[in-house]
């Protein structure tokens, strides 16, 4: 009898929520960068589902996937019985978000971040929504100091190198990042200039335009690792920047998400930017 009570107590202790203040929050995130923030805050145990843009860190694969951020299902999300859906302003369709809100889910649409400041504000917002302001403030401060370090280094360079930013999304789909893109914003944050400032948004690559652009450095964002094969892009390979090693091939979500990996992204881009003397030589 006594041993049975002991077992029940043990079970109760195991299954009691640690906070003690009732059930833990059930959270669904629909935006890769927001999901990353939740993980960096160490609050991933609250997650009951994520969207398909949430592929980092790897553990996200274990969570139920609710589909694409821009085609969120109503019942699918509701079935996870979330208290809170944190997503970005890109979330759609509007009808389903409205109905989720009316079904009692707290739906929070955060602004998409396009500057380091906005990225830090978003970290704070996510922390506040999850009731962990302090942890979020610590993380923001940590990221801030890393960002400052990279920006000091980029300022010390004292030049504004031009960068060709390429988005490798499918096997043969290569897009150039123009103005008004997250790619352009990332280049801004490290004092670089987009070599494709003439175009708006992401546009299919014009191979001759690549040759003409003569950038000081090349950044290639892959949606899956190893996707970009330089062998099929001789015009990129021929660019001086590529030949001289001023090139970066990296994960697109890290580069363009403006999440907690933003300092890494900025540092990685800054790393491959040439020193001023070279920029001058290239420009003449």
């Amino acid at each position, binding site marked *: 009898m006594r041993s049975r009570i002991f077992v029940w107590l043990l079970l109760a202790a195991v299954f009691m929520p640690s906070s003690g203040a009732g059930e833990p929050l059930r959270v669904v995130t629909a935006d890769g960068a927001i999901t990353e923030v939740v993980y960096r805050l160490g609050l991933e145990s609250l997650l009951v*589902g994520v969207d*398909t843009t949430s592929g980092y860190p790897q553990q996200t694969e274990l969570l*139920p*996937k*609710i*589909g*694409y951020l*821009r*085609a969120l*299902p*109503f*019942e*699918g*999300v*509701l*079935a*996870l019985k979330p208290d809170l859906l944190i997503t970005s302003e*890109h979330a*759609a*369709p509007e*009808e*389903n978000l409205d*109905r989720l809100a*009316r*079904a*009692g889910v707290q739906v929070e649409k955060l602004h998409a971040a396009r500057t380091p400041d906005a990225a830090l504000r978003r970290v704070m917002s996510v922390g506040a929504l999850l009731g962990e302001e302090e942890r979020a403030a610590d993380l923001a401060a940590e990221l801030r100091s890393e960002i400052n370090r990279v920006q000091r280094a980029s300022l010390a360079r004292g030049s504004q190198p031009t960068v060709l930013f390429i988005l490798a999304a499918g096997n043969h789909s290569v897009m150039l990042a123009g103005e008004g893109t997250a790619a352009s914003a990332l280049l801004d944050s490290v004092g670089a200039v987009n070599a494709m400032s003439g175009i708006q*948004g992401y*546009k299919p690559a014009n191979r001759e335009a690549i040759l003409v652009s003569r950038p000081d450095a090349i950044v290639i964002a892959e949606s899956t690792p190893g996707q970009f094969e330089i062998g099929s892009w001789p015009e990129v390979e021929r660019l001086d920047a590529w030949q001289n090693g001023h090139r970066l091939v990296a994960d697109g979500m890290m580069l363009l998400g403006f999440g907690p990996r933003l300092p890494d992204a900025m540092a990685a881009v800054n790393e491959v930017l040439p020193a001023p003397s070279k920029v001058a030589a290239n420009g003449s």
Partner: protein
Amino acid sequence: MVRDAAGRLGFAPSLVVALSAAAVVALVSITSGAYPLGLTDILSVITGREASDPVASMVLLEVRMPRFLLGFLVGAVLAVSGALLQGLFRNPLADPGLIGVSAGASLAAIAVIVLGNTWLGGWLAMTGEWALPIAAFLGGSGTVLLAWRIANRSGQTAVATLLLAGIAINAVAGAATGLLTFYATDEELRSLTFWTMGSLGHADWNDLLVGAPFMLLALLAAPWLARPLDAFLLGESVVGHLGYRTDTVKRAAILVVGLGVGAAVAVSGLIGFVGLVVPHLVRQLLGASHRVVLPFSALAGGTLLVAADSLARVVVTPAELPIGLMMALIGGPFFLAILLRTKVI
């Protein structure tokens, strides 16, 4: 009594079967979904009592009900449009998707989304909330007319020409859609993905309010065309002898198809093959008379689309498959099978 000489079911028993199938599918579609709802909750909501789950009534009345109704209407309209086109062109391969009607309707709708703030601003101001369905209707009707003009040589419809014209129309509409996508802003692109894939995932009462009048009008007008289309089966000259005006019949059919497909595309995007699969099955089972084919296509089309949609929303929960994708998976092989069996071209 129940079966005729060809071993086919009679009208009344068939109607009972079709209605029962529709009822079963309706029940499945209302009771199944990613969100688990107990039968007691569902009964409570239906009988107007308080359900134990507070969101039960919302899931049922604001999500599953409009989705079921919209799915049924769209399926019915697409199937009837297919039957009308097949009667008009006297060919079982005429399908709103194949001959480019759906593509034309969606091109017009996409043009409204992308150019609504610039070139087509006047159109938006003029039509307001109805901008999309009316544009899709005009696009759909225009394309039927175009296909008709191309395929019709001195009163005879050249079927190969019709299908090849469909390929060309689809290609041109696809290219124009691609061009609009190229110029679309990120914001507009969001609404565009929906048009090209076809989905009922967003369906609400407002979609019904906008789309249902057009679709119901098309469904109610269709039976009026049954007898003249039966005459068409015997050849265009017979139509005149039987006292129908050929041109009027053709124009009416084109109008009804444009109206129905346009409205269906406007509320649910591109969903193919319903218009091909359903009338074909109905003709196989019940015979070719349009007085039978039209009503049964409506019932079976609605039933098929709702069934496919019920499946689409549970196979990859909590996410959803686009219904357009499901229908293409079912319809593509079916189309090939008809081709191989009948060798109509």
